[in-house]
């Protein structure tokens, strides 16, 4: 069976790309490639990760400049085709800045850079990154950001909640002023997930000796999802060839 192939997009100023690479490759055995922001995502990539950091030094706003990077047109296309995309911290900020995910990340209510452990509560356990978690499960995980206060207007928040698109909330209320304590959301189809906390810092015993199990499940979920998605896309492609492109094959 082919390994799950993951592309980690690297921008000038990304600084969690190596942590993510280590966890994806060394802990979970994925086939991982860095994708420089001026390049294209390699064909056959099963999932894309936008890691944390300070792309372009957070100039203008966190993620605002990276959102215009050439690679983002690829990310946008892959997202629309159903490829799993995970944005962590700065990656989440970039996904909102380019409009792939709704809302915005504002300066924390405390005005300070927050670097601490927190607990998340899972609200959506059906995304490619949460399918091996369960609704209500707590996930111990660190946050490390200065602009992590999720904001969206009332209508958008209502739509997110009604559509089951709030993936994670902070367990102890809103640690940074995020509306509704939202820590992570997903796209309409669920394949794009953005989250402020860092699962790559919580998914192995060495960095999370107390309880790395729940954060591991974020990556285990992807490991289980990607082959199914790959098979589905093969069937769609086959149906397109046989049926002249009409309709969609059943997965």
């Amino acid at each position, binding site marked *: 069976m082919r390994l799950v192939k993951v592309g980690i997009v690297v921008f000038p100023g990304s600084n969690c790309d190596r942590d993510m690479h280590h966890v994806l490759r060394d802990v979970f055995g994925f086939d991982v490639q860095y994708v420089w922001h001026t390049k294209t995502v390699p064909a056959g990539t099963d999932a894309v990760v936008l890691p944390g950091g300070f792309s372009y030094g957070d100039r203008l706003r966190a993620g605002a400049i990276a*959102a215009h990077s050439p690679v983002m047109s690829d990310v946008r296309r892959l997202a629309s085709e159903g490829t799993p995309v995970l944005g962590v911290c700065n990656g989440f900020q970039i996904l909102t800045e380019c409009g792939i995910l709704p809302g915005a990340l*504002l300066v924390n*209510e405390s005005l300070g850079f927050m670097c601490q452990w927190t607990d998340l509560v899972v609200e959506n356990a059906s995304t490619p990154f949460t399918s091996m978690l369960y609704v209500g499960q707590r996930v111990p995980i660190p946050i490390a950001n200065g602009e992590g206060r999720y*904001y969206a207007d009332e209508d958008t928040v209502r739509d997110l909640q009604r559509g089951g698109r709030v993936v994670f909330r902070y367990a102890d209320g809103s640690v940074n002023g995020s509306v509704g304590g939202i820590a992570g959301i997903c796209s309409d189809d669920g394949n794009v997930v953005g989250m402020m906390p860092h699962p790559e810092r919580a998914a192995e015993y060495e960095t999370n000796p107390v309880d790395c199990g729940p954060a591991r499940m974020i990556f285990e979920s992807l490991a289980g999802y990607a082959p199914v998605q790959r098979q589905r896309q093969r069937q769609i492609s086959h149906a397109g060839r046989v049926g002249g492109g009409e309709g969609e094959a059943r997965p």
Partner: protein
Amino acid sequence: MRRFIVTVVIENKQGLSDPEGETILRDLVLKEGRDEASGGGAGSNGSNESGNNGCRISEIKTAKMLRMTVDSRDAESAVRDVRKVCDALHLYNPIVSMVDITAEPSP
């Protein structure tokens, strides 16, 4: 063509909290007003009527400013052109911010 200095002020939309502005008001401006009014003592009711040289400040909003040098036909064109750039490149985030653009002839 003439040269203009175009000022772009980006600030949070109304109703969106501005913790930096609130902190400056609460922990500096009003506090200074209290300290002046009470001679540095505690127990003030928070009014700054007597402090800050009688300047009654009730709200502070912080903003980001971009100052651009633009060659254009006139000030209106300069503002219009810069607004297009701001919209196209999301120099401000319309979800959370509003923008005020003004132009003056370059000295």
